[in-house]
């Protein structure tokens, strides 16, 4: 057995294959990006343990994640917020974690996406389980997991082939995702989810910006819109009573210890907004929540500067509009005395 020959061949061929793979994906226009995973979330969550009353934590789903830009916020307020919003998730498990497992009594800004916040309190339901899995990951993460994350960042920043996401996008390029995209026949009955492609780019510190492609390529944006409409048609009815009761209890505890809560309804537009108005009318959900919570609140429809914003894929703001939204929101919060500008 000539093992030395074999290892030399293996090394050379592996190098060629990996380099070819990287070059191929770069030639399709992809660039290296940070994976929006539990490890990245946990790094941000760790900041809460040393956060003071002057800090702001952002919770919510993808709208709070896309629409509130860290750098712009820092420029306006003077200090970067802790971004803990998660795509496709209810903010309730994360807020519960902050209330129950920390002594934080600064400001928590909760982005309210009615379809997710009022969806469920059932632990195994997707919007809940997804957020809870991040909370659990942070609580139980091992030293290996912490070190893995640190070691993987330089690779993610420099190699396209390292891009993979927990969202399991249709266009992810890890082997499992590539195989998942193969469809043969139509064996499973019932509605089929349209391909859900990645339309945001994550960076460190944890921040999400919409890809330019989503703004420039209407066909691409429409493919995302089809996914929202699919969710709208297939999602179970909201569980307003349970979610409201759960949230209000935590709000009460948080307020009682001196915490400052802000509810923000980020923009949505087009058919999605129409669907939201029909399925989760403002009067029955948002208005009822703010009347019971008695905290600072901002609905995009109440402010002329926000009303005009159009979401390219009906649910999230373009990076340019997200900067504008963040800047205006921060100014509103300061002028209303809800938060103060840091020196």
């Amino acid at each position, binding site marked *: *057995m*000539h*093992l*030395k*020959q*074999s*290892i*030399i*061949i*293996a*090394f*050379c*061929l*592996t190098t060629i*294959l*990996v380099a070819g*793979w990287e070059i191929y994906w770069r030639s399709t226009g992809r660039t290296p990006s940070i994976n929006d*995973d539990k490890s990245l979330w946990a790094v941000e969550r760790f900041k809460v343990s040393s956060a003071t009353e002057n800090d702001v934590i952002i919770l919510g789903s993808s709208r709070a994640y896309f629409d509130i830009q860290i750098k712009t916020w820092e420029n306006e307020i003077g200090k970067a917020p802790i971004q803990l919003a998660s795509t496709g998730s209810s903010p309730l498990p994360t807020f519960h974690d902050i209330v129950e497992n920390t002594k934080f009594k600064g400001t928590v800004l909760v982005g309210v996406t009615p379809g997710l916040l009022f969806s469920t309190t059932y632990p195994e339901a997707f919007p809940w389980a997804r957020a809870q899995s991040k909370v659990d990951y942070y609580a139980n993460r*091992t*030293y*290996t*997991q912490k*070190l*893995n994350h640190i*070691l*993987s960042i330089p*690779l993610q920043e420099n190699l396209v*082939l*390292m891009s*993979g996401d927990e969202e399991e996008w249709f266009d992810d*390029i*890890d*082997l*499992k995702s590539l*195989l*998942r995209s*193969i*469809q*043969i*026949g139509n*064996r*499973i*009955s019932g509605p089929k989810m349209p391909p859900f492609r990645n339309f945001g780019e994550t960076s460190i510190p944890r921040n999400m910006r919409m890809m330019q492609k989503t703004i420039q390529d209407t066909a691409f944006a429409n493919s995302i819109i089809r996914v929202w409409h699919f969710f709208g048609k297939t999602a179970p009815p909201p569980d307003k009573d349970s979610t409201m009761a759960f949230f209000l209890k935590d709000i009460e505890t948080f307020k009682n210890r001196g915490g400052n809560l802000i509810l923000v309804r980020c923009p949505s537009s087009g058919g999605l907004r129409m669907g939201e108005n029909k399925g989760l009318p403002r009067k029955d959900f948002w208005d009822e929540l703010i009347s019971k919570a008695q905290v600072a609140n901002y609905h995009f429809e109440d402010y002329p500067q926000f009303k005009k914003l159009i979401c390219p894929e009906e649910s999230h703001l373009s990076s340019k509009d997200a900067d504008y939204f963040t800047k205006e929101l921060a100014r509103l919060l300061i002028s209303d005395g809800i938060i103060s500008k840091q020196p």
Partner: protein
Amino acid sequence: MLFNSLTFIVFLVIVLILYYSKWFNWTNKKRILLLASYIFYGFWNPPLVILLWISTLVDWTAGKQLAIEENQRRRKFWLITSMVVNLGFLAFFKYRDFLLDNFTTVINTAYGYGYHSEPMDIILPMGISFYTFQTMSYTIDMYQRKTERAKTFLDFALYVTFFPQLVAGPIVRAKDLITQFYKEKRATSKQFIWGLFLLTIGLFEKVVIADTLLSGTSDMVFGSNKLLHGLDAWIGTIAFSGQIFFDFAGYSTCAIGIALLLGIVLPDNFKYPYASLGFSDLWKRWHISLSSWLKDYLYIPLGGNRHGIVRMYVALMITMLLGGLWHGAAWTFIVWGGLHGTYLILERLQRQYFPFKITRWNGIFLAFITFSCVNITWVFFRARSFESAWSMIKSMFYLQTDGEKILDMFSIIKVSIVISIMFLCHWFMRNTSLKEVSLKISPYALGIIWALMTFLIIIAQGNSEQFIYFQF
């Protein structure tokens, strides 16, 4: 620390640099290996290293006393002390909730009380079943005077803690491992490269086959609360069958490869088990180090085949039931063991009353029957409850005609191809070894296969999924 993680790659490189550096003598190199093993374990949960220390100290002391003590009662005392400490750890950390839950159920049923046991939710130390069984084998062998006492505490501590096989085996006997620590070990260049090749194969089995190709289908089927179509139930079951093999055999292959990089030889833990001709053959091929442990320290002390047929069947069944319980604190695991015990008894009855010759023509058919029966047992092993296991069994045998289809056609084709290839590979490899096969193929072909496996591991990325057997 997981083998399929970036942290482990860095860890292994540092360990190898220190191990092969000229700055340290053999004793210091062993100290480095011991420290590295504690770091390897502590990176998961540092306080639980204390359990390893207690186990090591108790069994070192027990072994020392057993080596010098002649008084039989005192010898028994030291053996029992070792057993109580090791099995006590297992009982407390692994079986506490299960035992308490069953105890309250029995009491409530018998006396009509309404007790509720409060689960303690104690963290299960990773690999506790492996290292306690390994260290117990030392004291039992010492008691039976089958092995020499470890020469130094360092050798013994390293035997208990040796990081490549610490958390998921192979469970190595003292005489096979401690003696290797007595003289300086250096891997030859052939051993080193072969070790790297085995590490690659192990990672390929785990990252590409188990996690990428099979786990999704198996998780979807066993995670479903629906009444499933028969095809879906079978595909989910064979996907798990492949997943658990590639996951566990992958770990063992990595462990053997990593040890070989250090010049240490570990025994094989799997020998193409899915081509077994019957169940006795299966247990000589699947998790060999556990089945031989159970045979030597449970089945034979229970009487083995020395006291007649009935006693032998009882011993066999008790061994398999406890073997099932070793895997997990749940009745589903006990049923899994019970099914294997039943298969073994039925096989012995068949040999006694309906013997037939196995030829090359009926062999593959027999192997397929064995594999199919093993798949049925995996349903109980994998299912979260008896209800879901029974629902799966009913679906598999088409007793549920209104079952729902949850798998797409590509998943069915993918799993069928992977499992068919696995079965055929096991069949054609059953009387040979990887090393023998690689001797026959050209170095170029081996290099190309190696490169393809490495490339697939890299593009699979993997999210450092934990090995299934770590929880046992």
